[in-house]
C-alpha cells in the first residue's frame, strides 16, 4: 500500500508543480512541491523509501525539465535519504521540527543542486540565498500543511461525516 501512495504522491506533486510553473514562473520558483513530497516520504516512511522516492522523482523532474538528468535526482536522493535518517533519529512528530526539517532539507537540496550544476558546468555556485530561503520557508509551510492534512485529514473527514449524520438525525 505504501508504494502506490508514494508513487501517487510524487505524481501529484509533479503534476501540481508543472501546473503552477505553467501559470507563473515566479510562483513556481517559490515552491518545490516535488521536493516537499520527497521530504514527506522520507519523514513518513524512512530513509530507503525517501531515497528511492527522491531518486525517482528527481529523475522524472529532471527529464521533464529538460536539463541534465541526474542532478535533481541526485540531490533529492541525498535529501530523501538524510531526511529519512534524521526522521528516524529525532522526534519530528510536531510541526516545528517538521518545518525545520523541510526548511533545512530544502536548503540542502538547493545547495546540492546548485553545487552539482556548478561542478558540471564548471562555474561557481550561483546560489540565490534569498530565493533559497523563501523557497525553504514555503516548502516548510507546505510540508507541515501536508502533514497536518495527512494526519488529520481522515480524522477531520470522519468528524465531518459524523457531524453530517447527526444533523440528519436531528431533522428527523
Amino acid at each position: 500500500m505504501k508504494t502506490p501512495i508514494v508513487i501517487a504522491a510524487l505524481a501529484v506533486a509533479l503534476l501540481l508543480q508543472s501546473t503552477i510553473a505553467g501559470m507563473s514562473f515566479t510562483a513556481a520558483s517559490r515552491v518545490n512541491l516535488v521536493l516537499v513530497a520527497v521530504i514527506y516520504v522520507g519523514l513518513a516512511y524512512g530513509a530507503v523509501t525517501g531515497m528511492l522516492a527522491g531518486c525517482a522523482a528527481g529523475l522524472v523532474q529532471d527529464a521533464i525539465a529538460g536539463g541534465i538528468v541526474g542532478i535533481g535526482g541526485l540531490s533529492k536522493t541525498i535529501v530523501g535519504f538524510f531526511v529519512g535518517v534524521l526522521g528516524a533519529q529525532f522526534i519530528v512528530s510536531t510541526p516545528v521540527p517538521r518545518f525545520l526539517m523541510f526548511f533545512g532539507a530544502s536548503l540542502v537540496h538547493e545547495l546540492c543542486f546548485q553545487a552539482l550544476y556548478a561542478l558540471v558546468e564548471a562555474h561557481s555556485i550561483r546560489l540565490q540565498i534569498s530565493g533559497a530561503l523563501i523557497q525553504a520557508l514555503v516548502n516548510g509551510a507546505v510540508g507541515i500543511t501536508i502533514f497536518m492534512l495527512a494526519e488529520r485529514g481522515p480524522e477531520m473527514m470522519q468528524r465531518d461525516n459524523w457531524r453530517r449524520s447527526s444533523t440528519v438525525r436531528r431533522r428527523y
Partner: protein
Amino acid sequence: MLDIRRRTGVLLLVIVVGQLFLISAQVPSKSGVPVFQAVTFGAFARVQGGAAGFLRGIGNIWGNYVWLRGVRGENEELRKQVTDLSVRLQEQRALAQRATRLQELLTLQTSTAVPTLAADVIAGNPNPGMLTITIGRGSADGVQPDMAVVAAGGVVGRIIGPTAAHAARVQVLIDRNAAAGAYIERTHSGGMVVGVDHDPPLSMDLVSNMADVKAGDMVMASGVDGIYPKGFAIGRVESSERGSGLYRAIAVRPSVDFSSLEEVLVVLVPPRSAVPEDSVPAPAATVGTGK
C-alpha cells in the same frame, strides 16, 4: 537472500554512483566530449592499453620465440655455409698456393739445365726417428735411388732405398743421417752440411776456422757428393763460431720449409761417385734461395 532495504548505505552508494554516471554521460568536457564518455573512454583506453600491452607482450614473446627459432635455424644454416665457404676458401687458397708452387717449380724446371720430374709428396714417415717423405713417382717414372730431390726453395733430399713403380722415399736433408756437399756462396768456402737434432736442423761441418763465414751467408750445394747438383740453395748461415778444433761451428737454417712440402722435383740424373764439381752441370740461374 540479501535484503537490499537493510543495506541502506550500499543502496545509497549505488544510486548515487549511478546518477553520477548518468550526469557524467550528459556533461560535455572542455574538449566537447561528454565527461562520461571521456572518463569511460579514458578508463577503457587504459584497459585497452593494458590489454594491448599484454597482447603485444605475448605477441612479442611469441614472435621473438618464433623469430629466435627461425634465427636459430638460419644461424645453423649460415654456420654451415660459413664452414662450407671456409673449406672452399681453404681449397681455393691451397689451389692458389699449389699453383704458385707449381709455377715456381716450373720456373725452376725450365731454368734448370738438369732434367727434372715433378712429383707430389704423398706421405711422410711414420717413424719419428727417420725424416723421410714419400713422393708419387717411382721407378716407372725413371726415379732411382740417390737421385736428388729439390724444391723451389732449394735442396730437399735424396731418393733412398728401393723405389716402387709409382712411389719413392726421400730422405730429407735435415735428417741426422743425411749430408750434402756445400759451400758458402759469398766466399766459396767448402764444407759438408749434415742434419742435426737441434734447431736449426742443419750444421755445416768441415769449414776451416780460418774461413770467412758470417751469419746470413747463403749455403749452396757444391755437387761434390755426386748427388745434389751444384748451385742449388741449401740454406742460410744462422750462426758461425770458431770451433774448438780445426773447424768452425756453423748453424744453417734450411731454405726449404720441410713442414709444408707438397710438390718437389726429382733431378733425373743418375748418381755418380764423388766427382769434381766442375763436371756437375750447374743450374742456369740461382733460384729459390729461400728468402
